[in-house]
């Protein structure tokens, strides 16, 4: 339900110039901006599974995914007074998500660097993701692979992508976002997103060749 203030806001705005005002999630956010807590709760419920899903695939850690998703909602809530509907709500939300994930990656990367140094001189080296996939594949002929094993292989292939490729691919596949919206969320041009997604799809095709060829 749209409140009278929001109705006036929408009426006063040129909706041809600000098409995002018709986005129902933008309307929820504008209601939240006016202090409607129920509207914000609705946004949390609408996006929580999608957001945690993206973070879970990016970080491979359920607790970290939920913590980061909560942080996204908190940031959105804190920024509500300054909110301007200049994009679809989901684009704005995933932009915040991407920024947080980038920060998380950087701190995680620093920790991993230390861990790698510890193992450098040890007898057990870090196995590249591709080798892990190949090892799994060797024990799983395409036609006989169980569904759970297939999931693991696909997950492994996804994890072998770099973080930006992964994010763009997940936003495109599971959020159905256009190249342009992904570009806004990831602070890239649409052309750069196109190139990024092409390389990601090529990489996946190579890693999953055994499965896609046999279908």
């Amino acid at each position: 339900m749209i409140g009278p203030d929001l109705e006036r806001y929408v009426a006063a705005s040129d909706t041809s110039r600000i098409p995002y005002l018709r986005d129902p999630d933008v309307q929820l956010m504008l209601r939240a901006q006016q202090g409607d807590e129920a509207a914000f709760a609705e946004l949390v419920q609408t996006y929580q599974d999608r957001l945690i899903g993206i973070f879970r695939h990016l970080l491979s850690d359920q607790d970290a995914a939920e913590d980061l998703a909560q942080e996204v909602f908190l940031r959105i809530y804190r920024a509500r007074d300054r909110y301007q509907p200049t994009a679809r709500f989901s684009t704005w939300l995933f932009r915040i998500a991407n920024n947080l994930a980038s920060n998380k990656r950087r701190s995680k990367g620093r920790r991993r660097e230390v861990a790698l140094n510890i193992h450098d001189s040890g007898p057990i080296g870090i196995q590249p993701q591709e080798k892990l996939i190949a090892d799994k594949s060797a024990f799983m002929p395409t036609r006989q692979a169980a569904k759970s094993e297939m999931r693991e292989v696909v997950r492994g292939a996804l994890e072998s992508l770099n973080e930006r490729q992964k994010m763009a691919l997940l936003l495109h596949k599971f959020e159905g976002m256009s190249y342009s919206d992904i570009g806004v969320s990831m602070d890239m041009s649409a052309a750069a997103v196109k190139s990024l997604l092409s390389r990601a799809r090529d990489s996946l095709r190579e890693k999953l060749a055994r499965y896609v060829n046999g279908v």
Partner: protein
Amino acid sequence: MEPQSSLSPEQRADLVAYLDGELDHESAVAIERLLAASPEVRREAELLSRTFELLEELPHVATSKEFTARTLSAIKVNRIEKSGSGAVRLWSQPMRRAVVAAGSVCALVAAALVGYLSTNRWIPDRSEALIRDLPVIENVDKYAEVEDIAFLRALERSEMFNDSDRLPEF
């Protein structure tokens, strides 16, 4: 590993964008010509599509039941903290001014008091000395006529004068 097709990187990017419905009309027509002309490109497009479909095999992520409640509670706490700090800010502004004004007045009074006390105690008052020596000053002409102090003391002992005429003690 699957051998790479003869498509250039740009054509491959266009092919992926075509499959995603993201290609402009002119480029889409060019890709459609390639698809029509080359079984290899058609095969490539097929493999790319199947690969993309395989992502649906990714495990479904279940959100914990308490996530919504936990998040909304965190938001509520944030709101309370913000309104609390806002109230403190609003309250502290006039309070700070009052404290500064009261402090200034106290400092002024203290400075005046210290000034008064120090001038009163340590700087000698000339009128006090005059008042103390007034009996001498009033009789200085008489004293000038007396040449010997011993004579005066003898005169005093003779009790020829009233108490008020007694010589001051030196």
